[in-house]
């Protein structure tokens, strides 16, 4: 820092500007200091300074720090208004920033570099006092800076930005609880929608801290305040689920006592009203009571209830199945989460218990997403974003992937699994439309649900999703989610659902799209009152995650990511799992109680059914009794706004989407393929194909899965040749027994979710160009392929075999990011390949070939893989694949390689994930031991 501060260079002049204000003068002092700062900066810039250092050093009993973000943004905008912003860069020297979120904000509002000097001091202090052991101060600070840089990259990546250069000054944030006047003055053009506090209250907060720090001299030597934001602590920040409320809920569901639930719900609702959430600030109004009996029965209402997406893997099989049984019994829906599901659960068991999750999730990892899995769903949910960490991926570490979990996820035991941040088949809205179309083809009876997370603009996104033909849109609050997540994402990404659901409702109604969509809402939904508010704001279905887990025994240890859950819920440890005491009845009781409480509210407001109630926000008011210095300025009227639309515009779901499936090529195929599908007799068919024929094979596979389950048909039973150009998602979820060959070329998402079928893309024999120099299939081929084979007589695009779990593929050239996140299967590439090969590849094997037998190291991402020579077994495998490739595609390249095998066999290399190698060794050992036993 000193280097820049005291720089002596002809081209650079750095000037420090102090960002302190006279604390005695209160908010006027703060305001004056901010204005003075602009005057000072202008002066020094006019004098030739081109580096401005904003510094909050030098606090004293008279001088308090201006919040640095406020100073930075004001300097940025203030000088922009003066048209002098292009003349200098801002460097921050501040005691404030400590989390990636803080740094991201400072960059987002114009800073070019940040020196967190206080953190430097703290780390120095921690090292000197042995709180940090074994590393030097220098290293520890370096680590911290690196962690922050990584954190910032994560925040940037969340919004899809790859360079800090483009992120700086982009202001990609939404303010929550700051008033418009304040924002307009200091954070120009930032969205803020519920008003809130301004400079006066902000100064009051600084003052409070300031006085506490100074006035209580006797605090010297006492510990700092505890904090308690991330976990409940006595004397710490308030949490809604605290030991008292948890105990009451568990008591209520175990004893089946509505009165005890009443105590719980009162605890939660009152806390909520004691100003912890936005919904806490509402009160019901315009009462118009009707007898309770006239309200639709609880058995109808719970059909609109769902449990949240928690994967098997993140929670134990016992807890997962318990939720499914409970929800199926009352006609509600449980959610598989993203980890696949054991096919045994698709049918009711001997006791009549049905463990099938009605909702099957499709997340970016695509674990276990096969034709059969999708065929067993009543609803298929596309997880676009997750409340706890929107825009981020996840990771299931190797040791957690036991053989059972691996089997339902179609992966290799003990191999770590990565969920990528994006769905690699959704980079834009027409891609989402395509995935919805794929899934609708994979199971026509199931509704397709798209999960979004609340943020400013989610309404317009929802309108786009409605136009992309989703059946259900789920708006999640930022606060929900049970999964593991970086701490700052947990708190700082996304908005409460009150804003999201209301924005979605308003925007969909304005666009006259509301009638075609079912709107669902979730996020810390705990009581009937919560549900009632969500409904009045526009939701017609409702999701619960944390509360049903608490009903099943969760005590909120917040150790889900540690595998040490003491009540056997969020753990895979066999011993701990025995502690699971939850019963389906507990979950059912909870749902029943919530529905009853909701019915009481409905009766008091005069609604006989949920349909009548959806979006009737005039029945809500902001509680006038609020008397809190910060909350007073909040204005919720925008949430309660109802757009002015003609009478014919419906404000709740009244009709179904037209998916336009009648023209799908598969229907023609199915009508001709009865022999194969029903009698398993081999059949050969031929069709022409065009790029408008999309998702070919999905309906066909759905029909086969419905009849024959996961096993499909015997190998190559139904062989179909297509001539022309196949549309997107050719062979999507193609199941075992299908042999689909395109003579021509294909588009993106070739073999998505391949479920056992065989796919071939072959260059027409009339063509004169060389196959290995011409592209034949598009980007993102074999995404999430479960098993099966693919032979590609030409070059593929970017991200070939991304997240392949078990398919075998031969291809004559590929683009960048090949075999990314692959967890199993085999890829043989006998041509050129692009950059970043094998990034995040934790399993499976890739064989590469080059004409001169050399490989450029720089093209690989060697973080998780090693490059090895082939063994004899590998050579056998490669030869076999090449021979298959010739049989299916007549590939001249494969022929020429085999022709001089002795010479050419030296030109291969094997890409082996280290994790995978270790897992195979464990498995071999286990098999060995099993033999001995």
């Amino acid at each position, binding site marked *: 820092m*000193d*280097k820049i501060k005291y*720089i*002596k260079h002809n*081209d650079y002049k750095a000037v420090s500007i102090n960002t302190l204000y006279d604390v005695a003068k209160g908010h006027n002092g703060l305001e004056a200091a901010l204005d003075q700062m602009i005057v000072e900066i202008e002066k020094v810039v006019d004098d030739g300074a081109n580096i401005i250092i904003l510094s909050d*050093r030098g606090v004293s009993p008279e001088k308090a720090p201006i919040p640095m*973000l406020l100073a930075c943004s004001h300097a940025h905008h203030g000088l922009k208004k003066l048209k002098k912003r*292009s003349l*200098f860069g801002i460097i921050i020297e501040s005691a404030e920033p400590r989390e990636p979120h803080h740094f991201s904000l400072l960059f987002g509002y114009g800073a070019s*570099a940040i020196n967190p*000097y*206080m953190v430097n001091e703290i780390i120095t202090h921690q090292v000197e006092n042995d709180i*940090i052991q074994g590393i030097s101060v220098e290293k520890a600070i370096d680590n911290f800076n690196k*962690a922050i*840089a*990584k954190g*910032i990259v994560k925040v940037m*990546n969340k919004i*899809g*930005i*790859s360079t*800090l250069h*483009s*992120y700086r*000054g982009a*202001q990609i*944030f939404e303010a929550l*609880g700051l008033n418009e006047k304040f924002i307009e003055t200091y954070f120009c053009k930032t969205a803020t929608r519920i008003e*809130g*506090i301004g400079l006066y209250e902000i100064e009051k907060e600084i003052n409070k801290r300031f006085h506490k720090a100074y006035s209580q001299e006797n605090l010297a030597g006492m510990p700092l305040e505890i904090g*308690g934001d*991330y976990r409940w602590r006595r004397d710490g920040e308030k*949490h*809604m689920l605290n030991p008292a409320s948890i105990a009451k809920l568990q008591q209520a569901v175990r004893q089946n006592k509505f009165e005890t639930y009443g105590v719980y719900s009162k605890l939660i609702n009152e806390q909520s009203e004691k100003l912890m959430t936005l919904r806490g600030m509402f009160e019901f109004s315009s009462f118009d009571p009707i007898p309770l009996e006239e309200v639709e029965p609880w058995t109808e209402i719970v059909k609109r209830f769902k449990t949240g997406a928690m994967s098997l893997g993140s929670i134990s099989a016992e807890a997962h199945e318990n939720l499914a049984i409970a929800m199926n019994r009352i006609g509600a829906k449980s959610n598989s989460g993203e980890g696949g599901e054991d096919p045994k659960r698709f049918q009711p068991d001997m006791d009549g218990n049905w463990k099938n999750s009605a909702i099957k999730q499709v997340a970016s990892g695509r674990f276990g997403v096969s034709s059969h899995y999708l065929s067993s769903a009543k609803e298929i949910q596309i997880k*676009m974003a997750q409340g706890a960490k929107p825009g981020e991926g996840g990771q299931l570490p190797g040791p957690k992937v036991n053989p059972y979990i691996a089997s339902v996820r179609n992966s290799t035991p003990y191999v770590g699994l990565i969920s990528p941040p*994006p769905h690699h088949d*959704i980079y834009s809205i027409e891609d989402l439309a*395509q995935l919805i179309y794929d899934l609708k083809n994979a199971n026509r009876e199931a509704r397709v649900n798209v999960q*979004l997370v609340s943020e400013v603009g989610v309404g*317009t996104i929802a309108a786009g999703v409605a136009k992309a033909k989703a059946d259900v849109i789920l708006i999640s609050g930022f*606060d929900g989610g049970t999964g*593991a997540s*970086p*701490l700052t994402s947990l708190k*700082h990404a996304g*908005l409460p659902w009150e804003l999201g659901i209301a924005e979605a409702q308003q925007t969909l109604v304005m*666009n006259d799209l509301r009638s075609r969509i079912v709107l669902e809402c979730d996020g810390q939904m705990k009581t009937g009152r919560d549900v009632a508010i969500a409904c009045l704001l526009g939701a017609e279905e409702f999701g619960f995650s944390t509360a049903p887990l608490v009903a099943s025994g969760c005590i909120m240890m917040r150790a889900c990511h540690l595998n040490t859950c003491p009540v056997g819920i969020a753990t895979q440890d066999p011993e701990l799992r025995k502690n699971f005491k939850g019963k389906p009845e507990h979950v059912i009781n909870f749902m029943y109680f919530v529905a009853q409480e909701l019915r009481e509210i409905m009766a008091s407001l005069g609604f006989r059914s949920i349909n009548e109630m959806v979006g009737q926000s005039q029945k809500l008011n902001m509680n006038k009794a609020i008397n*809190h210095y*910060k909350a007073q300025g909040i204005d919720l009227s925008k949430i309660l706004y*109802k757009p002015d639309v003609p009478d014919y515009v419906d404000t709740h779901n009244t009709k179904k989407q037209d998916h336009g499936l009648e023209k799908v090529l598969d229907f023609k195929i199915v009508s001709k393929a009865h022999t194969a599908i029903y009698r398993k007799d081999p059949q050969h068919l031929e069709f022409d194909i*065009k*790029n408008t024929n999309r998702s070919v094979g999905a309906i066909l596979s759905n029909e086969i899965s419905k009849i024959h389950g996961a096993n499909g048909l015997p190998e190559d039973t139904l062989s179909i040749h297509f001539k022309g150009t196949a*549309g*997107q998602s050719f062979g999507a979820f193609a199941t075992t027994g299908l042999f689909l060959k395109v003579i021509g070329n294909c588009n*993106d998402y070739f073999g998505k979710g391949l479920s056992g079928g065989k796919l071939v893309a072959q260059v027409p024999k*009339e063509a004169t160009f060389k196959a290995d120099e011409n592209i034949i299939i*598009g*980007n993102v081929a074999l995404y999430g392929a479960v098993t099966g084979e693919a032979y590609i007589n030409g070059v593929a695009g970017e991200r070939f075999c991304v997240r392949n779990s078990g398919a075998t593929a031969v291809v004559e050239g590929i683009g*960048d*990011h090949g075999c990314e996140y692959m967890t199993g299967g085999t890829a043989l590439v006998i041509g050129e390949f692009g950059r970043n090969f094998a990034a995040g590849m934790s399993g499976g094997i890739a064989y590469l070939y080059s004409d001169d037998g050399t490989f450029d190291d720089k093209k690989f991402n060697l973080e998780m893989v090693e490059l090895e020579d082939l063994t004899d077994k590998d050579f056998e495998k490669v030869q076999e694949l090449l021979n298959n490739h010739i049989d299916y595609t007549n590939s001249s390249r494969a022929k020429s390689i085999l022709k001089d095998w002795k010479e050419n066999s030296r030109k291969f290399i094997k890409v082996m994930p280290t994790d995978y190698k270790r897992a195979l060794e464990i498995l071999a050992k286990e098999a060995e031991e099993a033999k001995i036993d």
Partner: protein
Amino acid sequence: MLPEKQGLYSPENEHDNCGAGFICSLQGKKTNDIIHKALDILVKLEHRGAVSADGKTGDGAGILIEIPHDFFVKKCDFKLPEFHEYAVGMVFLPQKENQMDFCIQTFEGEIKRQGLEVLGWRAVPVDQSQVGAIAAQTEPEVRQIFVGKGQKQLSEQEFNTKLYIARKVAEHHIQGSKLSQANYFYLPSFSTHTLIYKGLLTPEDINAYYKDLNDPLVVTRLALVHQRFSTNTFPTWDLAQPFRYMCHNGEINTFRGNYSRMQTREELFKSDAFGDDIKKILPVVLPAKSDSSSMDMAVELLLATGRSLPEVMMMMVPEAWERHLSMDDDKKAFYEYNACIMEPWDGPASIPFTDGKYIGALLDRNGLRPSRYTVTKDGYVVMSSEAGVLDIEPDNVEKHGRLEPGRMFLVNMDEGRIIEDGEIKKEIVGKKPYRKWLDQNLLELKEVPYTGNKTPVEKENFETRLRLFGYTQEDMKTIINPMSVNAKEAIGSMGTDTPLAVLSDRPQLIYNYFKQLFAQVTNPPLDGIREEIVTDTSLSIGSDHNIFDVVPEQCKKLRIQNPVISNEDWTRSNT
């Protein structure tokens, strides 16, 4: 028109994505058939667009072609100069006659003020029955204006600059007039080479609506087509694509930052060609337009600085050069130099572009959008979001290719050949001694010497300051400690159920009142861990320079690799 801000809705949040493509004759043969082939491409991409609640109104589609000179000579009741010696403007005007007249007069006035000559106007014949009910609400009057060079001898660049100024000033004037239909005034194109027919139409309806396109005299050697998928059902004719020089299929994620930085840059604009008019064209990027439309406006400006279209595209959408280990140094220097001037316009996008002479396309650094092309033996190049959009016999295929991440390809119809990425860029990066300029001007933080001065130690004691800045035990243990030990952030679970900052009794840091936004649906979040090669955290500090100048001073900047800096610059530091 987009509705006003109301309730929680704000028009600023609208997004759009789409399908795009072009077809051109490699030998530069002009035909009317190209138009129909191009429209056929759009019809085959229809599943990439969307239709509104009325079942008829599309989200917008359009076609860019060359100016059909012979057609206009025949159709116009006034005399036209030689081809390329005059400009044709496609003009959307208000429906109300009095307002239309105002726009026409204003626009003509500005054209004349530039010393140019209005040759005449032509009403564009349209079939209104082709428009859906929603689109009809805001259907503009469509006319073409013909503008000559006037008395003076003007070079093409000078003529273009004057056309640009006239249009910009008229736009600002009319938008500022507060007329109820001021928003109708819009010029899809105004050029000596290209002409754009577009509207809130579905692909099938473009040539039914614009009858011109069926006239055999309307011939072109290239056609660029686009079809839009937007997140609303509100009728916005002007946001249909293509735009004047480009269209794009994707989304610019960095748009907010780019927009704000463009405004800052305007402070320093200076140009002899523009003279005093430079102030009148500001702001260059109009507020509240789509990301694509805004990008097009920035492209226009950069072209006006004398840079070529491919150079502008390289500047705005650079390859991921920062961590590219095997990139040619001249190219790296070009990108590094331009990074001092312009930040990337980054996001998943495939961007076809043309100035009527060249036609080409560029793909984003991450390769997040599909772009496939086919060259046929009978001399056509077809590029689009999908393969198979035109029926081409297998034996007629010369080559099937795709655009690769950060790569460009260009068709030079005069020379009748495709110029590959390497060749185009080699020429551009060799124009100036960028590496030398960088060596002489760009300063790395690690090269900055200490001057011996030190920041004085704080007077207040450590603990008081901890309390003053709101540090808690949790901050120390849960936040800072794990990061300094493991070099990464700590993990938690089970969501959050504490009060919102504004509802908390505890004094909050101002950061807690802000929430991060994130990508969903219209653009993807990125994977900076596994796809690190495309990310970069370096920043440069120092004053900016006039964007019109390509001079060494542009890169007088101080560059910092990790802009989180320590109190002391450790020897093995993060600079």
